[in-house]
C-alpha cells in the first residue's frame, strides 16, 4: 500500500457562537472566536489516499481527478466564504477545525473510487490542526 497526499489552500471566515449559551458562556468557551463579525484563516488541507499502484500506470489514482474533486467539493464550497452563513452543511454546527475537517471527510470519502481515503488533515494555522481517520483504522 502507498499513501498519496494532495495539498490545497483556501481562505475563509468564521465565528464560534452557540445560541443555546448565554453571552457570557459564549465568551468564556469561545473567547475571541466569539467576536460577532467573525474572523478568517488561511486553511491548508492535506488529503491522503491509500492504495496499490496500478501495475500498468504506476499510479494509485489520477491526481488530476483528485485535484478536480477538491476544487469541486472544497474550493467552490469554502474558499472566500463565511463558513457559518455560506456552507449549508455546517448549519447548526460550530465551524471548528474538527467540524470542517469531518465535513470534508464526509464529502470526499464516498467520491474517492480509486484507492481509499486514509486521512484528512486540516490546518487552521501552523499550530492548530484536525485529523480525520476511518474509525477503527490505523492512525
Amino acid at each position, binding site marked *: 500500500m502507498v499513501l498519496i497526499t494532495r495539498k490545497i489552500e483556501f481562505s475563509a471566515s468564521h465565528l*464560534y457562537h*452557540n445560541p*443555546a*449559551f448565554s453571552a457570557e458562556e459564549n465568551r468564556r*468557551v*469561545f*473567547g475571541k472566536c466569539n467576536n460577532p463579525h467573525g474572523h478568517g484563516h488561511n486553511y491548508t488541507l492535506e488529503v491522503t489516499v491509500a492504495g496499490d499502484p496500478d501495475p500498468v500506470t504506476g499510479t494509485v489514482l489520477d491526481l488530476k481527478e483528485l485535484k478536480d474533486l477538491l476544487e469541486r467539493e472544497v474550493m467552490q464550497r469554502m474558499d472566500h466564504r463565511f463558513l457559518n452563513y455560506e456552507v449549508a452543511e455546517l448549519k447548526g*454546527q*460550530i*465551524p*471548528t*477545525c*474538527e*467540524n470542517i*475537517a*469531518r465535513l470534508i*471527510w*464526509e464529502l470526499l*470519502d464516498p467520491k474517492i473510487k480509486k484507492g481509499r481515503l486514509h486521512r484528512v*488533515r486540516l490546518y487552521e494555522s*501552523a*499550530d*492548530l*490542526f*484536525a*485529523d*480525520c*481517520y*476511518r*474509525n*477503527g*483504522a*490505523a*492512525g
Partner: protein
Amino acid sequence: MGVRVELGRRYQFAASHRLHTDRLSEEENARVFGKCANPFGHGHNYILEVSVSGDVDRATGMVANLADLDNFVEREVIEVFDHHSMNEDVAAFRDVVPTTENLCIEIFERLKNFPTAKLERVRVQETSNNSFEYAGENGRERL
C-alpha cells in the same frame, strides 16, 4: 463505519541535552553519540505536536477545549523543559539518556492523563531534519 476526529496542536520549547551514559566507556560514548556527547551539552528548538481524540462536542464543535489542552501541556511539559537542561533539571533523565526517542516517551507519559480527551500520540521534532513519534506502549496501530 464512522470517522475518528483528532485535534492536533503544536508547541515549541528550547532545551539542552547531552547524550552520554556512564554504562559506556568515554570512547564508546564518543563513538555512539558523536558530537552529542560533548561534555557541556548543546540545545535545540524542539517542536512538539500533540494529538488527542474524542467525540466532537455538539455544543462547542470541539474534541477538547484548546485552553484546557494548552494549560495542561504548559504545566506538564513546557514549564518542565523550556529553557532547561534535560540532564540536570528533569528527574526522568537522571539515569536515562535524553535522546529524542526517550523525550517522546517521557512527554507521552506526562500527557497521557489529559482529562477531557484521549491522548493519541506525540511527535517531537528535534531539528527540521529529525522527528520522532510515540503513541504509548500499545500504540503501534496509532502511528
